[in-house]
């Protein structure tokens, strides 16, 4: 069995009526059991990539223009393969409220809707929905109306709808926004378990801190790849700070200290421990100099 689940080769996309490409010559791959983080400021193309991976872009934005190759689960992302894509991918959009169908009376029914469309048996639907609600700790919302939830609860509901399918590939657009710190940690644990079961994960994030623990990171800027590789390689790239990517504070601090010490800084320590050790060394150095 081929382990590759996503392959992008020079993939570009421009929306209809737009001269500029929203995504330009993207090349990356993702295997089963791997997690990819996509970071970048606003208008970097994260949402467009999320829509492309779930097949939405090619189905709903037909006036757009695509170049290169993008395949998911061994099949080209194409409107004809949309059913296959929906079956193997779980997607969380940036605005979870728009993922609520508006036709179901309870949270339980809303989560079950995805499985109903997949033709899964009634008893299995019930057990899978109960399990996913319990995993996200929202089982107490089971009989509440989806329209009466808070922002964070709506996000968890949309996540539950994506996870309940037990997809091969999970594509999440800013999954940690609107969640409280406990919710963020709980979701990270769920996602870690998901990947350890041989599934693939793509997370689009505004805050690079959330992608530090992933296998690979793709940094985008206006649809172009700025850096791609391991989190240490990408987040340690000084261009990210210079272009306002909002890297964690300890990396930025290390950058400022290094910048004062030497002019040509190209790479920084990315792990908290590493940065702390680095800053301790700097302090020792300054103390020695004073003495």
């Amino acid at each position: 069995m081929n382990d590759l689940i996503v392959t992008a080769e020079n993939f570009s996309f421009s929306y209809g009526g737009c001269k500029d490409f929203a995504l330009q010559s993207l090349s990356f791959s993702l295997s089963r059991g791997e997690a990819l983080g996509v970071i970048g400021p606003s208008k970097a193309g994260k949402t467009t990539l999320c829509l492309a991976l779930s097949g939405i872009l090619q189905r709903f934005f037909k006036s757009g223009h695509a170049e290169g190759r993008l395949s998911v689960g061994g099949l080209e992302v194409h409107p004809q393969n949309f059913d296959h894509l929906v079956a193997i991918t779980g997607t969380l959009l940036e605005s979870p409220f728009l993922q609520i169908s508006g036709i179901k009376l309870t949270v339980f029914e809303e989560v079950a809707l995805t499985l109903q469309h997949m033709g899964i048996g009634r008893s299995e639907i019930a057990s899978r929905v109960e399990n996913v609600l319990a995993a996200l700790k929202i089982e107490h919302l089971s009989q509440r109306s989806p329209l009466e939830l808070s922002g964070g609860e709506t996000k968890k509901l949309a996540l539950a709808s994506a996870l309940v399918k037990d997809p091969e590939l999970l594509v999440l657009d800013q999954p940690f926004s609107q969640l409280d710190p406990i919710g963020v940690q709980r979701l990270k644990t769920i996602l870690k378990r998901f990947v350890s079961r041989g599934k693939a994960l793509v997370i689009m994030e505004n805050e690079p801190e959330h992608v530090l623990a992933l296998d690979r990171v793709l940094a985008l800027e206006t649809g172009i790849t700025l850096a791609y590789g391991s989190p240490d390689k990408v987040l340690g790239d000084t261009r990210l700070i210079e272009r306002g990517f909002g890297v964690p504070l300890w990396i930025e601090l290390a950058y400022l200290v290094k910048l004062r010490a030497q002019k040509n800084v190209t790479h920084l320590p990315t792990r908290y421990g590493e940065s702390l050790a680095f800053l301790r060394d700097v302090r020792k150095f300054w103390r020695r100099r004073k003495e």
Partner: protein
Amino acid sequence: MRLHPATSLVIAVSAICESLLLDAQGNTVLALTLLAFLLVRPNARIMLRRFAVHLGAVIFFIFLLNSLIYPESGSSLMGSVGFLRKDGIQFAWHISARLLVLIFSQIFFFTSADPHLLAEWAMRRDFGQSLGYVFLFAISLLQLLRHKLEAVTQAQQSRGLKVEGNVFVRTRAFLPIIAPLVFSYLKESINRSIGLSLKGFGSKSSYTPLAVEEPQPLHEKFIAMLVISGFLFSLALKVLR
């Protein structure tokens, strides 16, 4: 007690079709019969109370306008104007009774069967997923708009707009909100269809209904047959006359 969706649908649709065949007296009897059915149901009573004032106002204006102006064939505009014109009142009575049958049948339909079960019942019979969703979405639309309206109102209130007070103040506050609200909702429809597609809507896989389908009880089948027969009898009488 809830009726089977099929029974509810047959009764409501037959009543609406029947009202098109009947005269003023017939429509009045039909409206009163439906009203009697509605009054014994608590949820229907709530809905009736909600509509009563608006319905009363509409019927009042139908009577008022038709009793003052009723154009006869060949008469001039001035010749149509009068005071408490008998033919105008007769026409208003017919129209009002028909309107009441239409409204009461719909209230009966929405309160006697669970609309969600009805949609699933329709989907099971291959009426198409889209039809079921359009039906359910139409029911949920008001609720969705109400939520959005609350959010917009709160946002406007935080900007200092006066949204509470007498009817005049509230109307003045809501009028500029309504149009953008509806338009933004229409704009969101593409995103909502994306959301539904991600949930597999429109896929070729078979749809699994959540509720176990209850067969239509025998007595309800009998009632439905009786209602259909009644309608066919009226239709035959109308054609033969």
